């Protein structure tokens, strides 16, 4: 049984269809990449999976259980961890406290049980030196790292990553890829939306292409990248 399955999921904002009968399944332990041009509906897809936006139609199943009507809290507790593309830190809390919230609530534990793990995650994501700084004072790149760290703190079974590699230097990007591989290696399933393709492709084993809210490609990265359709639509520049 797939760990996550979407069936005919649709969503419109007024006249704009941002998700159009999307169906796919994520196997346990799989790492899936999602690509598509700006505005294709990638972030919206995440919001639908996490429950931050309600679907118009279709069902979302987690571990075989119907989660379509569940609020985001329930889905988080069921094992979905996410990052926001535009980082959404708790600005008046410190970086460490941001993780504590996620740790304590997201994995239904008392605070003292999660402190050590949160500290470990800070080290792992390179935020340790900022632990006691207010999240509101972080720059963009650190905010993105905090997104990742906070999602990890909820101890997710599925990790949804939304454009966390944008703006990194080559070295930083490499580190990030290592970190995500580690996480994946621990058995966490991953869906990653990313424009930085080489980073994405060095982690994922399967790609989905979204265009105008529709899945126009689904398969192994090489085949997908090779398809002319995808190259034209996605790369935006005539090839």
């Amino acid at each position, binding site marked *: 049984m797939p760990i996550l399955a979407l069936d005919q999921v649709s969503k419109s904002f*007024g006249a704009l269809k941002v998700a159009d009968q999307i169906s796919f399944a994520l196997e346990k332990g799989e790492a899936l990449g999602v690509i598509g041009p*700006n*505005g294709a509906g990638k972030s919206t897809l995440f919001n639908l999976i996490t429950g931050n936006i309600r679907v118009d139609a279709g069902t979302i199943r987690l571990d075989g259980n119907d989660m379509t009507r569940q609020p985001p809290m329930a889905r988080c507790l069921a094992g979905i961890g996410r990052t926001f593309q535009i980082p959404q830190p708790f600005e008046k809390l410190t970086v460490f406290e941001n993780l504590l919230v996620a740790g304590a609530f997201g994995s239904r534990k008392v605070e003292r049980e999660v402190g050590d793990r949160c500290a470990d995650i800070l080290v792992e994501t390179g935020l340790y030196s900022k632990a006691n700084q207010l999240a509101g004072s972080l720059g963009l790149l650190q905010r993105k790292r905090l997104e990742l760290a906070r999602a990890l703190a909820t101890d997710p079974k599925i990790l949804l990553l939304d454009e966390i590699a*944008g*703006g*990194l*230097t080559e070295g930083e*990007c490499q580190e990030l890829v290592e970190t995500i591989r580690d996480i994946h290696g621990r058995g966490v399933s991953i869906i990653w939306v990313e424009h*930085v393709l080489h980073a994405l492709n060095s982690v994922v084993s399967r790609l989905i292409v979204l265009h105008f809210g529709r899945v126009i490609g689904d398969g192994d990265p090489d085949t997908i990248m090779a398809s002319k359709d995808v190259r034209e639509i996605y790369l935006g*520049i005539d090839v």
Partner: protein
Amino acid sequence: MALLETHGLTAFYGDFQALFGVDITLNESETVAVIGANGAGKSTLLRSISGLIRNVPGHIRFDGGEIGALAAPDVLQLGITMVPEGRRLFPSLSVEENLLIGKYGRVGNGAWSLDTIYDLFPVLKEHRHRPGTALSGGQQQMVAIGRALISNPRVLLCDEVSLGLAPVVVRDIYAAFPKIRATGASIVIIEQDIGQALKVADRVYCMMEGRVTLTGAPTTLSREDIHAAYFGAHAR
């Protein structure tokens, strides 16, 4: 002399610094495109120019005068209007009212009036009594552009006019740009659709993390350069 220029422009949201010393220049009757990834600071740049974000004075000049510290209505009166990101039509106003409200603070001389805007986007006339937000995304974008044009601006700032729109619609909207340019207005567009940006612009700025990382005419920039400037990491 440049019509509009920023030098060393910085901007903050609370403690968070979004711009780190940005220098851009816009000449009379020129079209400039600003590209960059999500969150790079493109919108912040336009918000700073248009007065939505108040800046420390001394970093933005328009037509020889300092405008960095002016509020949005004062900037508008000088002849700078903006098509904001996400269109931002007024839901309580009809299409026509949305257009008319563009004249509230400034009625400049020039080609644009309600009639000429309906000529530019004929579809709007059909829907003029409907609520602005009841239209399709592309039509809404047309209203937003019309609303900014109706005061006959000297500088038009456009933030992501093609975002979330179908290619045909994008084509329709971009088809209007030559007509707009023809009236002599200078234009700054922000565009994530790089191909589109390169097509309409005389010059391109690429931003990353609140800084300009690349400048030049479309013809002189290689795709690798753009990609590097855009995403930071080097393309494969």
